[in-house]
């Protein structure tokens, strides 16, 4: 029997992904702050190993959605289900700011919450390319390096679900592209499920299998990204998809402006 080694590799990779990623189900998820509805009955199913990007204008509820999934904000309605095998799945969150403890070295930060985890923390640091900075204080690192340490800290727990809350928002353009490549390669190798909240539509198109748009607390768009990886930003398909999502995100805004102009007239 003849087998195609490349094909076989892809199949086993997909199988590995499904085994190592958790699936995520949201049913009627609702959240209110001081009488204002932030999340209004969000239903969502994410397959194991899938990379999902959540985009939307600031204040649309996308960060709240992520915090509800992480268990940092108890929802007022509905439920969050995260599952894989029998035991409780490992869920880790990466925040917009790195949130490193300034009084612990880089290595100690990565090993936070581990028992005797120094060797594993070293390995995780090496996987984000910062092995030689293990003994440094976070204060001397650049913004991009801090986020890489935060990524290592999340990955050392071998999460089945990784939640990313605009982790690259504060980085400069070049560092951001580097980080996107790093996240993509680690995701490809490890096969965890990833949910990335971002305001950067291009970032969503680069990384995600699926792009979700949240508008006024509701799921307004659910789009599959069929582009092959790694994705070149210059391709026509890439550009047209990015434009399509961007137009859709901005539409609400245009509508509001139109309404106001009509009222003034």
């Amino acid at each position, binding site marked *: 029997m003849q087998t195609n080694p490349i094909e076989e590799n892809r199949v086993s990779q997909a199988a590995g992904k499904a085994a190592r990623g958790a699936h995520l189900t949201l049913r009627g998820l609702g959240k209110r702050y001081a009488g204002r509805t932030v999340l209004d009955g969000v239903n969502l199913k994410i397959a194991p190993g899938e990379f999902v990007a959540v985009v939307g204008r600031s204040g649309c509820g996308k960060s709240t959605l992520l915090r509800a999934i992480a*268990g*940092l904000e108890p929802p007022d309605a509905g439920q969050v289900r995260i599952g894989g095998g029998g035991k409780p799945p490992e869920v880790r969150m990466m*925040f917009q700011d790195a*949130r490193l403890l300034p*009084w612990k070295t880089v290595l100690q930060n990565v090993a*936070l919450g581990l028992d005797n985890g120094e060797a594993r923390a070293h390995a995780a640091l090496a996987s984000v390319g910062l092995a030689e900075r293990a003994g440094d*204080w976070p204060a001397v690192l650049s913004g991009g390096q801090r986020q890489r340490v935060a990524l290592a800290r999340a990955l050392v*727990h071998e999460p089945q679900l990784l939640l990313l809350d605009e982790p690259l928002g504060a980085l400069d353009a070049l560092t951001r592209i580097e980080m996107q490549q790093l996240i993509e390669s680690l995701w490809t190798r490890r096969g965890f499920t990833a949910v990335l909240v971002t305001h950067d539509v291009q970032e969503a198109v680069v990384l995600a299998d699926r792009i979700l748009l949240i508008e006024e607390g509701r799921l307004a768009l659910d789009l599959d990204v069929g582009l092959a990886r790694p994705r070149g930003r210059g391709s026509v398909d890439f550009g047209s998809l990015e434009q399509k999502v961007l137009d859709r995100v901005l539409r609400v805004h245009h509508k509001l402006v139109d309404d106001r102009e009509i009222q003034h007239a």
Partner: protein
Amino acid sequence: MAPARTPARLLAAGAPWALPLLLIVVWQAAAQTGLMSSRILPEPWAVATAFWHLAMSGELWTHLKVSLWRALAGFAVGAGLGLLLGLLNGSSRRAAVLLDTTLQMVRNIPALALIPLVILWFGIDEAAKLFLLSVGVFFPMYLNTFHGIRAVDPALIEMARSYGLSGWALYRDVILPGALPSILVGVRFSLGLVWVLLIVAETISAQAGIGYMTMNAREFLQTDVVLVGVLLYALLGKAADVAARGLERHFLRWNPAYL
């Protein structure tokens, strides 16, 4: 580079001491030309010899030992209690509601205003001095610890909780180190204050100590010995400050502001 650098470094190290040295020179000159009577202020040389005689007779060390012991004991009791209550009230809303208002009221009474009462309660013994010092040192420590705990970045606490830290581990790894800069400010304030309080406490009535030595010298118009006492307080205060800074350098070495 090295030879050019060394004098510059010496100059930089000597700069803080230039003004005190100049003052001493002017003072000595004023005393020698008769501009200033030695009854008002003895010349620096006389102070130096008085210091030498006191040191040689062993009197100085006896008094110094007694004063140091009082300062350390007062600091340990007062600052220790301040730290404990600051930690308690900073960590527990319930404790803060119960205790903080009372402590804030007591804080506004100057410790030294209590002297008459303290003498009634404790007599004029060591207990009275210890009480005065501890009460005075308590508040800077309490306030700074309380504030430090409350000011720990909630984002870091949230992060640590989401990484599974809770209870003592959360306290040890996040809350205490986060409050430490503020706690050390409290230590510094308290160490400075303990000497001021000690001077007053030792002049109430004492059989030994630097305060006793200076009060005694005043009775005999030994202004040179009085000045030795004053300078000793200044040196001890400076030593306490250096110690506090050393603590900051060690415990806050992660913070670029303290490097």
